[in-house]
Structures are given as C-alpha cells and as structure tokens.
C-alpha cells in the first residue's frame, strides 16, 4: 500500500476519534457544571489540549460559552470538532478508492451535517444532544469500518489511528479530571463526590461498566484503575494499547521492529501493572510519561510507514 494512502487512513481515523474525545471532554464539563459547586473545568480542557494560547488570542475568559464556541465550531482552531471532522473527510476523500463506499458516504455525510449543524443548538439545553450526535457519528464510522472493510493493511492502519488517538485522549482525560476532583480535597481512596465522579464515568460511557466491574461505591482509585488497567473496558489505556500493538504486528515491515518492541513493552506494562504502583509513583507522573511514550510511538509509526520514504 502507498505510504500516503496509509497516512490518510491513519489520520482519517485519528480525527474521527479525536472529535469524539473532544465531545466527551466537553460533555463532562457540561455535566459537572450542573452539579452544585462543581468546577466545570473549561480552562483545564484548554490547557490539557495545549490550546490555552490560541484561545487567549481570541477570547478573554474561559467561560462555558467561549470555550464551547472555540472547541466546537471554530474552524481556525485545528482541534475543534468542526476542524477534526473536516480533516477526517478530507483524508477520506483522498483515499475514497481504498475505503468502502459506505465508509466514504458516512464520513462525507458526517462532515456535511456538521458544517450545517444549527449553531444556536449549542447555547441551550440541546447541547447534550449535540455531543451525543458526535459520539454516534463516531460509533457509526467505526461500525461501518468493522462491518464493511476487508481485514487488510488499510483496515489495520485505520485501527492503529483509532487506538493510538484513544490511548492519548483517555490518558489526558484522566489526568485533568482526576486532579481537578481530588487535588487537596481528599485522599485518593476515600469516597468522593458521587455526582462529580459519576458524571466523569458517564462521559466515557463507563458508569454502568463501573457498577458491573466493582459492585461498589465509586472511589477515585477504582475509577482510575478501570480507565487505565482494565482489559475489558473499551476505552482504557490497556485495551487501546493492546489494539495498537496487534495492529502494528499486522502491518510490520522491514524497519518497524523497534516500534513494535516499544508498543509491546508499553502494552505489557499495562497488562502486568498494578494501580498501587501507579499511585506510588504518582498518577500525574505516570500519565505524563505514558503520553510521551504514546507520542513517540506515533512519530515512529509515521517514520516507519507513513511519511514518503526518501529515495536513498
């Protein structure tokens, strides 16, 4: 497969997943803002995504309205949901001969609807509906991929993009939310504010999952364990990295050995890791290190497979 084709597929998937994760993060802010005395964390959403400066250039204060506008419909912000869905569509357009017609139609349709999405719906109570819509378009896109794509190289590059993006996003998500809820308030093993934590769990579709897995009160440590180490939780770091590792195995080439080793190592550390050790080391340090390693993997994947290889 052409390196450029693989690159478009990989980024198509990353942008769709990114749009979904941004919707999830904004969704949890929105839910938390309805909890009495809850800190919605609009500012933290910007800083965790490295967008503070770009935001300040346009807005003074990180109010709900300003952040929502910036993160949803602002075409100048490359991380807005609008920009992500446009980039997903453009990447899909460049490889429409490689993806199935259902995939192309889904991605194209998502973009067209996003472009025409009524802006006023963002202001009122219908915002929840919008986040649901973004999530469902992402589900649809993944479903169409699973349901129609040949399990060939193209498929594996799409999956690689999806799960590398998800690993990164989930790690950032835990980092920002955990510290916002726990910092200086209570020791990590105490029962925390039920509403805030359940809002967090719901935003990653993990509320019922938590109940099933733990049959217990919501505690910050267990929430963290679920999102980092659980092998059955579809958005956990572990699940994401297992997928990254396996899809990488499937596309391996003559120069990807070291990349595969590193992905395997990271995956194994999640598989055999214990949440006690994560906290002993410091959750923030642990997640920061994880994000660095995921980004290194992303760069290595680009170098091994995606960027036009030099003539030499």
């Amino acid at each position, binding site marked *: 497969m052409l390196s450029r*084709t693989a690159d478009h597929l990989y980024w198509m998937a990353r942008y769709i997943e990114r749009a979904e994760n941004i919707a999830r993060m904004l969704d949890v802010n929105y839910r938390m803002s309805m909890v009495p005395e809850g800190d919605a964390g609009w500012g933290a959403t910007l800083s965790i995504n490295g967008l503070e400066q770009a935001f300040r250039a346009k807005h003074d204060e990180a109010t709900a309205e300003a952040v929502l506008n910036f993160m949803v419909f602002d075409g100048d912000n490359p991380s807005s949901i609008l920009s992500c869905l446009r980039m997903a569509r453009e990447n899909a357009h*460049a490889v429409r001969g490689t993806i199935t017609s259902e995939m192309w139609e889904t991605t194209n349709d998502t973009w067209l609807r996003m472009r025409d999405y009524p802006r006023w719906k963002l202001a009122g109570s219908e915002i929840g509906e919008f986040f649901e819509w973004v999530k469902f378009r992402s589900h649809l896109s993944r479903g169409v991929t699973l349901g129609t794509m040949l399990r060939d190289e193209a498929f594996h590059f799409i999956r690689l993009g999806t799960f590398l993006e998800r690993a990164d996003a989930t790690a950032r998500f835990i980092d920002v939310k955990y510290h916002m809820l726990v910092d200086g308030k209570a020791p990590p093993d105490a029962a925390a504010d039920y509403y805030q934590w359940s809002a967090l769990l719901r935003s990653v579709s993990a509320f019922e999952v938590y109940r099933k897995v733990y049959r217990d009160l919501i505690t910050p440590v267990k929430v963290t364990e679920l999102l980092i180490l659980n092998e059955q939780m579809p958005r956990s770091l572990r699940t994401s990295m297992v997928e990254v590792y396996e899809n990488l195995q499937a596309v391996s080439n003559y120069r990807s050995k070291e990349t595969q080793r590193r992905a395997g190592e990271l995956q194994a550390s999640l598989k055999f890791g214990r949440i006690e050790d994560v906290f002993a080391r410091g959750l923030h340090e642990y997640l920061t290190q994880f994000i660095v390693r995921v980004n290194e993997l992303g760069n290595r994947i680009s170098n091994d497979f995606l960027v036009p*290889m030099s003539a030499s």
Partner: protein
Amino acid sequence: MVHPSSIYDEMNGADGTVRAHYAGYQKWLAETPPERIAQKRAEADLVFHRVGITFAVYGEEEGKERLIPFDVVPRIIPAQEWKQLAAGLRQRVKALNMFLHDVYHDQNILKTGRIPAEQVLSNSQYRPEMQGVDVPGGIYAHIAGVDVVRAGAGEFYVLEDNLRVPSGVSYMLEDRRMMMRLFPELFSRHRVAPVEHYPDMLLANLRAVAPQGVVDPTVIVLTPGAYNSAYFEHAFLAQQMGVELVEGQDLFVRDEHLYMRTTQGPQRVDVIYRRIDDDFLDPLAFRADSMLGVPGLLQVYRAGHVTLANAIGTGVADDKSIYPYVPDMIRFYLGEEPLLNNVPTYMCRKKEDLAYVLAHLDELVVKEVHGAGGYGMLIGPRASKDEIARFRQLLTDNPEGYIAQPTLSLSACPTFVEQGIAPRHIDLRPFVLSGKDINMVPGGLTRVALREGSLVVNSSQGGGTKDTWVLEE
C-alpha cells in the same frame, strides 16, 4: 443555419414514425406510468449524490462538487451502425498512432509534403524530447476518446480525436449501472451489448504495453490529486482495476527506474496510466513549477524502463490545426479511404480561409486551436452581434490561434426536460484502446446539451449524460 426540421432525431423519423431500434423502448415508455419514471429519476439523483459521482468545477468554492445531470432516456445505436462506426474508429486511431510514430522517427509524411512540416514541428504540442524514442509496440495513444456526432442517417463526423487524457469513461460505466438498477425490465426486453468489462480491458491493455522483459508489470493510475475535476474518475478506475491511485509525491526515480513509496518500502512501477498533462509530468524536463509530477521521470521513460499511457507528445496529433490532415494520414499510412467523415475545416492561418471565415462568421463555428471543454468558442448562428464583433477582432489579431467549421446540425435524442420529453442535441465519445490490438466496448459516453437548441454538450457548461446502448443483433 440550423433548421429544427433538418435535425436528425435518433428516435423519431421525419415521417413521425418511431425508428425500428427504438420501437421496444417506445412501447415500454407508453406502458410505464409517468409517476414511476419520475420517481426513478429522483432516485437516480439521490444515489448519484450520495455516492458522490460528481465533478469539481474550477473557480467554485472549495470542496463544492456538482452532479452531472443524468438522463434516463437511453441513446440507442443499432448493431449495424455501430459496426461501421467501430471500423471507422479503429482505422482512424490506427492511423493516428502511425502518424505519431512517424513524427517522432523518420517523419516520412512531412518529407512527402502531405502535411507542412512547420505545422507539426513548430506546434507547441510537438515534443522534441520524444524524437527517436521507441515506445512499446509503437503505440502512443493507448486511450483515445474520439468525439463523434451524427448529422444524418449513417452520417458520422469526427469532431475531435482527444489523444491526451480523455475523460468521461466513468460516467459511461455509472450510467449503465444506474439504468440497470432503475429499469431492469428494459434490459430483459433488449439485447444491450455490455460495457462493464471496460476496466478489465483497460488493465489488460496497459499490461500489454509494459516495458520489454517485465513479466508481471505493476500498473498505477497517476492523478493530479483530490482537487482535480476528474478525481472521481481517477479513483474509480484505479479501484475498478485494482491498482494503486498515485500522486507525483508518491513516486521517485532511482537508478533510471521508477518507484512508489509503500508501507513495505519502495516498489517498482512499470506502467503509468497518467491523468496529468505532459507539461506537469516532470519538473526537470517540462514545467519547473509543477508539483504534480516526478523529477527525472522523462529520463526513466526515455530509457524504456516505464511506459506512459498515453505517451508524451500525443497532443501533436489531436491538435485542431492537425485535425484537417487526419483523412490524409489514413490514406498515407493505410492506403485506405477514411470511413468516418472529417468536418471541413478552415484554417485561419491561411489567408484565403481567414477571408472566408470573416465573411461568414454568422454561419460558422470558430474554435481555438488549443481550446477544450467548449470554452473560447463561437457558434455563429447563435451568437450575438457583440460576440461576432469580438471574434472578428480575435481572428484578425491572431489568425493562427483559430479554426472554423460549418455549424453541423447535431442529431437530437428525446430527453427528459421540465416540460416533459423533448429532443436535445447529443454527441458520442467512444473510448478506443490500443495495445497489442485495438479494442473498445460497444458505444461510449453520450453527452447531451440540456438547454434547448444548445450544441454545447460539455459538463462544465450544462451538459448531461445518457446511457448508450448498442443493440446486439
């Protein structure tokens, strides 16, 4: 002048009776409730939109794509007529390939004076880089999209030979697919010659012209990219043939061979079905500012390590200033009389022709020698006084840039329009493939000028398409 009464109608004879090859269709039309057809027409629009069978229009907002209108009344050609047409096309394309080989080798036709040498050698489409280069099988125009119009019964004229990068074949294939989806019963009532195997034929043709000694050639489609107006077709053909759709940036030259960058490392490329003009193929040899091509490609090509389809320099044979000589080419190379008519052409660079053209601007069609797409054209009988005055000035200033032809009364075919069904002018673009031998699928792309009385069928100017049926005997 074009008189409506003198227009040949593909379906209805002058005496009001339906022509024999349309009898079956006419019967079906009479039996079928109009609501059903209206519903099917809406369905066609919806499907074409969703699937994105569109073309981008230059100058319009980025990402904006338009549908080419599709008309559900087929253009039907009886078997016997197609047989004659196909023989004429074969003959013509064969002679054109021989001409190209001659021009880039011994130039016999120029030596005999049949075509003025300076007409060829100073033509901007002539590529001196190709002089003495041997291409596999001596084939230059592997894919020709010859534009044919009908003036009367059995009377076909070639308008243009299109030997560079002719497009439209994807619409031919999609129109058929759509007709079969909408009206399957029509195909059980008629023996319509299939066209669906075109991509297989094209692939076989491309593989057959691989560089010598290559056993299992790697074929690719080279596109300018997703913003090109014909990108849908490039992607479609690559997908249908099961080959890579490649942009210039995916290719590189090493040791006089061409490679593409793949996830498994560099891979050799043997045959390029290129949908990029000569000028943009190699920034080292042609336009230095081209971002679309591959530096060093010409060198690989000249060394015979890659085949380009079509070859570099085919434009010298389909240029409007060379067009008038095609019948002579056929006589010179094949010793045969041309089976298809050429439209009589006035070359404005000739003094006497120019004088005639200037005196008859209101009757003639004036075309730019290097123009395409129906732009830069004057249709005398339909032009305003101002337009005629403007062309008079253009011709006087730059006579070499123009040719003129009598206004042909293109045949018309019944077509769905707002008021119901009415005749609209049509042309035909059959796609002729040359490799080991010459092949084509029966029919081609029928384009229809949807505006009443219009003779311009180009999609960029309000043209639509129809499914083209060649009826088997």
